[in-house]
């Protein structure tokens, strides 16, 4: 009887480990496989049996990076994402700091307003804004895209930076006040550096949101301001003689910047979830 129960438990453990191994494989393998495919010639990709042995080539990357449309998309993505994230941090961090330090009904209402911006269906934002930007003669420009993305980056920065500022010990700020620091220098010289690492995570998160954004860019650009996701999706819609290698290469290039943020975001996740849950339990 005892040995029977032991073996049932052993089987359960084996099943649990196998499930986790399968999940880890499912998480990584598609990305690795896409990378492998991006190094293949067309003849090595378009095969019924997936080919593991082949002569690698960088032709696909060279092709993508020398193409006018892809280079334009890359520049647009960098400019639009960079500007909207920087502006979002510049405006959002002080706001998050005030929300973390002052309490009252209005801070609660304001936080809900910031969250509720995330409820807005992107189509409902993009359609009227398209008409507005057309009317202002700013349609298909980087400026209009930066302003539109501010909605995204500003709200996410405020939402994620508020808990980070709340973790800054009040005692440090009170000591600074005794030393004659005003509210602005307390924010700049005390709160910002102390909360620095978590804030970097919040900003990295808003970068990923803006870099990955697709629907709004699709509706608000046609040629001049097209971002990289739009260019990549156009490549995937090509009909026959699909250049599979080039597609895989452009998907890898598009995915690289968010993946580079993984370290920062992982650290941010750990502190935010752990502290948030502890706060919720008390």
């Amino acid at each position, binding site marked *: 009887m005892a040995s029977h129960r032991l073996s049932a438990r052993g089987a359960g453990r084996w099943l*649990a*480990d196998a*499930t*986790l191994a399968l*999940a*880890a494989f*499912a*998480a*990584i393998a598609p*990305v690795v496989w*896409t990378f492998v*495919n991006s190094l293949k010639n067309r003849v090595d*990709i378009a095969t*019924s*049996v997936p080919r593991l042995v082949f002569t690698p080539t960088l032709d696909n990357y060279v092709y993508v990076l020398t193409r006018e449309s892809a280079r334009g998309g890359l520049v647009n993505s960098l400019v639009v994402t960079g500007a909207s994230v920087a502006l979002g941090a510049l*405006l959002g961090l*002080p*706001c998050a700091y005030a929300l973390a330090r002052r309490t009252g009904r209005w801070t609660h209402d304001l936080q*809900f307003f910031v969250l*509720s911006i995330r*409820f*807005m*269906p992107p*189509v*409902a*934002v993009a*359609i*009227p*804004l398209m*008409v*507005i930007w057309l009317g202002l003669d700013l349609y298909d420009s980087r400026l209009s895209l930066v302003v*539109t993305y*501010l909605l995204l980056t*500003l709200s996410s920065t405020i939402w994620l930076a508020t808990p980070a500022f709340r973790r800054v010990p009040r005692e440090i700020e009170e000591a600074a006040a005794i030393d004659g620091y*005003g*509210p*602005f220098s307390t924010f700049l010289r005390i709160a910002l550096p102390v909360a620095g690492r978590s804030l970097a995570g919040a900003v990295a998160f808003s970068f990923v949101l803006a870099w*990955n954004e*697709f*629907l709004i860019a*699709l*509706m608000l650009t046609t040629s001049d301001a097209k971002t990289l*996701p739009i260019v*990549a*999706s156009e490549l*995937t819609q090509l009909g026959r003689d699909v250049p*599979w290698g080039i*597609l*895989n290469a452009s*998907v890898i290039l*598009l*995915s690289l910047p*968010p*993946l580079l943020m*993984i370290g920062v975001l*992982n650290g941010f*996740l750990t502190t935010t979830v*752990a502290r948030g*849950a*502890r706060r919720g339990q008390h």
Partner: protein
Amino acid sequence: MNVRRLATPAFVGPSVLTLAVLAFVPTVFALWISLQDRELGQPDAHFVWFRNFVQLAQDRRFLNAMRVSAVWEVLTVASTMAVAVLLGVLMFDRCGPRMRRTLTLAFIVPVLLPRVSAAFVWKFAFHPLFGAATWPWRALTGEPVDLLASPVSALLTVAFVDVWQWSLFFAVIVLKLLETLPPQPFEAARVDRAKPWEIYAWVAVPMLRGPLLSLAFVKMIESLRSFDLIYVMTRGGPGISTETLDMYAFSQGFIESGRISYASSMAVLMMVVTTVAFTTLWNWSRRWQATV
């Protein structure tokens, strides 16, 4: 002291003003356009009041899109939460600190990918002739299989990619939530000779119901943003079997007819429904968490 009082408006003012303008102007404008008969490329527009909305109620394609969106929402939220809790508990039970760190990094990868990338990666993996994921089927039966060609399997395939992106990430959060729990209830249950799965099902997961509910709430909001996946993988097809509300609004406004007012009336309806639903849910969950 005076400076201190002035500081709050200076800190909060600029971003609140920016957000208010950026959120309210499009909302009001969307409402305004939805009452007209505006079309792309035509300068004239007249007020038709609620004619667009009346037409929507009779539009079978719109009703289909509502059904697809509802199925999508339930399917992706439920599967994501189920897979996330299962994997989170398994990691917590089976892995030491180093293994947890490794798995965490691996599990975050899918959610960081742009939706366009995730959609392409899997569209190619499911390619009937060259896909790596469809290769076992080809090897066994000798025939190609096109999962995106039939209505039910197409919706399930796109939903699978969505769940792939989110459930692994949520599993990491579930793990980190489990790590914050105090050990005493676990020990008490073990003394009572509870089996491991019983401890998780009746002790650990109920203790985390608040955070898990918030996670489900986040996923509900994110599931509304299915457009990128569907646009790249199926374009709403085959037929209209994967056409969600945002996909239909987009094709009415941009691809097929340029009926921007009609598309806008759809967007307005979506906005009203989601705002009412999420505000109610949010308040309800806060009250529920306060009483329990």
